[in-house]
Each structure stands twice: as structure tokens, then as C-alpha cells.
């Protein structure tokens, strides 16, 4: 028994639509000061979304993650103290703060016909973060998702435009998953901003969060839609 969905091509993202979604996305980002911009490459004529943000991190491991790191050699950084600390002691002893520069790019993959997330992070002295270090700052509820989710693997690849190493969320499951979310509602799907839908799903796993305000943009009632 085969159950065919709405034509699967409907849920692929054409490059033209990718650019339009990105344009709407950037406009909204500018309105709320979320820091995204559209960059183009002079040579290739391709464009991509880019965001850089700086985050102050404690070097503590938050309590949710302590089980995961039993093998870690950097014991001194963890707040595994035997006696309880009062607030004044805790602040001084356990945490050093450091600034991390996160960079996220959204590029279009013409072979998969979906957007792809590239990301990297480094300390201010230029030292890049490892994937484990990046995941250390991800919300605890996403920890389990790192292994299982609508992404096959995270690999390190050369950025197609910049030629520098970035981590990449492999796109081979994106189409399948996004199609499931959009469901059979082709009419609805036409008005959905694919980038917002996709990025709000995959971004948090790598520390990228979209403010709720994007949800209002995510589904525009277009002027051509049925009235009512």
C-alpha cells in the first residue's frame, strides 16, 4: 500500500524562493536588531545569510551536563566541589568568564535543494572551539537531539564561498523532515517562510536561537490569500 503525499517537489526549496525567504528574514532581523545580514560573493554571484554574535560563557559545566563529562581531563574547570559553596564563594572560585565569537551562515544547496547551516566559533584570541565546546553551551533539552534529529551528521567542511573550515549540519534529511512539518497543507505551505521554519528547528541544536518575534513573520497571510 503506498500513500503518496502531496507532490514532494512542492516541499523542495527553489533557489529563488530561498532568496526571497532570506530577504524577508533579514528585513525582520533588522527591525528587531537580531544581527543577520545577507552577504554576496562578487565572484560567484551567490548569496548567503550571515550572523555573528558574541557570547560570554562561564567555564562551568551546568548541572544538566555533568553526567556526560565524566572522562573530561579538565577537572579543575568543573564545579564539582565537595562542600556546598555559599554565593560569595561560588562566584569567585568556580567561574571564569570568556567571550566566544559565534558565526552562523545559511547557504543554499542546489544539489539537495534545501538551505544548509554552516557554523563555527572561536575565542577572542582566535583559537577555534571544538564541536564539544560548542555543544557545551547548547540548552540542556537539546543535548539528546544532537545524536538524533533531522540531520544526519555534523562534519567539518570548507565553506563553499569563503574557503575556510566550518562545521556543517548535513542537509540530507532536511527535505524529509520539513515536508513532514508542512504536512499535506500545500496552501498553508505557500505562505510559510521556509528559512524560519527550518532555522528555528535546527538552529538551537548548535546554539542558535531565533526570537519568538520571527514566528509572526513565519506565516504571512499574503494579499492573494482567500479572505476571511
Amino acid at each position, binding site marked *: 500500500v503506498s500513500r503518496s503525499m502531496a507532490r514532494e517537489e512542492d516541499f523542495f526549496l527553489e533557489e529563488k524562493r530561498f532568496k526571497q525567504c532570506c530577504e524577508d528574514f533579514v528585513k525582520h532581523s533588522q527591525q528587531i536588531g537580531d544581527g543577520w545580514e545577507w552577504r554576496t560573493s562578487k565572484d560567484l554571484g551567490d548569496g548567503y545569510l550571515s550572523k555573528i554574535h558574541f557570547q560570554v560563557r562561564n567555564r562551568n559545566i551546568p548541572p544538566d551536563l555533568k553526567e556526560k563529562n565524566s572522562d573530561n581531563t579538565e577537572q579543575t574547570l568543573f564545579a564539582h566541589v565537595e562542600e556546598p559553596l555559599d554565593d560569595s564563594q561560588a562566584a569567585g572560585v568556580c567561574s571564569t568568564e570568556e567571550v566566544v565569537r559565534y558565526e552562523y551562515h545559511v547557504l543554499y544547496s542546489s544539489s539537495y535543494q534545501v538551505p544548509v547551516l554552516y557554523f563555527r566559533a572561536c575565542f577572542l584570541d582566535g583559537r577555534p572551539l571544538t564541536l564539544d565546546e560548542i555543544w557545551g553551551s547548547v*540548552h540542556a*533539552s*537539546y543535548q*539528546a*537531539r544532537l*545524536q*538524533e*534529529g*533531522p540531520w*544526519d551528521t555534523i562534519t567539518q567542511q570548507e565553506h563553499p564561498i569563503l574557503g575556510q573550515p566550518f562545521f556543517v549540519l548535513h542537509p540530507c534529511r532536511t527535505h524529509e*523532515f520539513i515536508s*513532514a*512539518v*508542512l*504536512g499535506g*497543507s500545500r496552501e*498553508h505551505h505557500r505562505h*510559510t*517562510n521556509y528559512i*524560519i*521554519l527550518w532555522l*528555528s*528547528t535546527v538552529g*538551537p541544536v548548535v546554539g542558535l*536561537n*531565533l526570537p*519568538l518575534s*520571527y*514566528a*509572526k513573520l*513565519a*506565516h504571512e497571510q499574503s494579499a492573494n490569500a482567500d479572505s476571511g
Partner: protein
Amino acid sequence: PIMRTKKWAVERTRTIQGLVDFIKKFLKLMASEQLFIYVNQSFAPSPDQEVGTLYECFGSDGKLVLHYCKTQAWG
């Protein structure tokens, strides 16, 4: 993955993460299956987001429609 909708009464301060945990138990999902929740079928709110806030932005008539989508257990 198939999406369905059901009706539940939820306190305003319940977070998305709380909802996810509840639905996963309700559906008896395996640990390796993941659940994603969407508002307007177009945006996945962050896990800390309170349902009450979502209702204020996107709900009406005492109802907030959310969709959930579960993934298979990969590998």
C-alpha cells in the same frame, strides 16, 4: 513522521519543553525519538518558551493551536 492534533488544557506557565516531555510520555516515544513543536505550523519556539506567551501572540478564543512532529529513531 505524521502530524496529528489533539486537545489539552495546559497552564500558562508550562514551557514548550514541559509539553514535549508530556507528549513524549503520552505517545510512549522511545528515548531516541525526538519531538518538535510548532506554532502556526511555521516556527519552532524555544524550549523555555511559556505556553501563556505563545497564547497571547498566536492564540484566540481560549485556544492555542500547536502542531507536533516526531522523528523516527534514526540508526
